[in-house]
């Protein structure tokens, strides 16, 4: 797996013990984890500003237990792993709050828990790489004179929506069913519309959320179109017949979306910069939820897709 399609995960760390911290540093590096180390006093603030986490690692003692309870109350979807003292009574730990415990030095056990809670879904390298290529190409085509970069893809357990506006695109192939979400900040997109970086004319209509919706909608549409060209072989599509659906619940006030599944989501974070530095970088989070079907064994990449990409934009006359 190359750097571009490697999967990472961001974890919050509250650890007081120096030797465990040293062990954790090595552990993070070896297990594709990005650690955010926090003090007990600022942990809730850090949680507030990091809405794309995968898990929390806590230190032992009363403070660790209390923090665990608080975090569980506000971010229940984040698995919390607590390091406990060998003399502590592991049986007394509230199992609904803590996903698991480990003793200092038990990195194998921690690895097992991380694997089971965070990296339990396999994503084909070709899919992750392809999503990045298609999305970057789409963003650069839809947003003139921009430079788009993508962080290393990662897994999030958080369900909090970034920004004020997001699109939901239904994805359906013979190997996956679910949704793609694009989440961004309304004001950032409004600004790039005003700067005439999109295909919309800011003089035609007042620049407001409706135009932002249009831009995000077309970007979502183009990404899914690119994915279909590359990954969907229509002849292999099974007869849909009866299709399972589950309700998607959105809490506006809490900026929370639930697909009814505890599985981690594949997340890619794009940074759109202006080639001429006329606006602050725009951030778009792209998240994938394959909660209705995920069968990566059937994943295939269409050989013709590369030619199709070259031909896109060209008129094929009949």
């Amino acid at each position, binding site marked *: 797996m190359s750097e571009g399609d490697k999967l990472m995960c961001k974890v919050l760390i509250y650890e007081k013990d120096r030797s465990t911290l040293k062990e954790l540093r090595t552990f993070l590096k070896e297990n594709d984890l990005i650690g955010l180390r926090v003090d007990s006093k600022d942990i809730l603030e850090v949680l507030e500003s990091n809405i794309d986490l995968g898990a929390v690692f806590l230190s032992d003692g009363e403070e660790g237990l209390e923090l665990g309870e608080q975090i569980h109350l506000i971010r229940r979807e984040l698995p919390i792993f607590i390091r406990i003292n060998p003399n502590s009574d592991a049986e007394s730990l509230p199992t609904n709050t803590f996903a698991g415990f480990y003793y200092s030095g038990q990195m194998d056990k921690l690895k097992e828990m991380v694997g089971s809670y965070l990296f339990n879904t396999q994503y084909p390298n070709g899919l992750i790489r392809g999503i990045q290529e298609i999305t970057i190409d789409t963003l650069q085509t839809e947003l003139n004179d921009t430079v788009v970069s993508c962080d290393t893809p990662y897994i999030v357990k958080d369900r909090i929506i970034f920004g004020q506006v997001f699109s939901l695109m239904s994805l359906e192939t013979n190997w996956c069913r679910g949704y793609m979400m694009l989440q961004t900040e309304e004001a950032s997109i409004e600004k790039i519309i005003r700067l005439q970086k999109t295909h919309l004319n800011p003089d035609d209509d007042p620049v407001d959320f409706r135009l932002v919706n249009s831009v995000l909608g077309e970007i979502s549409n183009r990404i899914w179109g690119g994915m*279909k060209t590359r990954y969907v072989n*229509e002849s292999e599509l099974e007869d849909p017949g009866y299709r399972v659906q589950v309700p998607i619940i959105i809490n506006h006030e809490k900026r929370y979306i639930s697909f009814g599944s505890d599985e981690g989501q594949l997340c890619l974070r794009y940074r759109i910069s202006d080639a001429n530095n006329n606006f602050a970088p725009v951030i778009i989070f792209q998240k994938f939820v394959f909660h209705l079907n995920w069968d990566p064994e059937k994943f295939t990449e269409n050989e013709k897709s590369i030619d199709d990409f070259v031909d896109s934009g*060209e008129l094929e*006359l009949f």
Partner: protein
Amino acid sequence: MAQILVVDDSATVRNEVSSFFKGKGYDVATANDGKQGLDNIKTDASIKLVFCDVNMPIMDGLTMVEKVRNELKNSKTAIIMLTTESDPKMKARGKASGVKGWIVKPFNGTSVLGAVKKLIG
């Protein structure tokens, strides 16, 4: 009165395509979905060319094309699909319905201008 009609549920695409052709001196009208597009084609005989998306609410693009061919049998309006769809089966359905051409988005005005001139002058 328009020579070109752009049918797409995306304001971004409608604006992109219509701005390009307006800039080249064509009269351009727009519609948000297949039903509106069909109404425009029925009521404006000056429309010579239609750029039409496939996936749209209310009425999709291929259904609109089929309705144009069935309900306006003598229509000479050329229809080009402008879509993210590249599936051969879908293209075949379009071709069978009388679609003149197929463009997989993104729209590249310069590359289609020559063909447009041939189709509508």
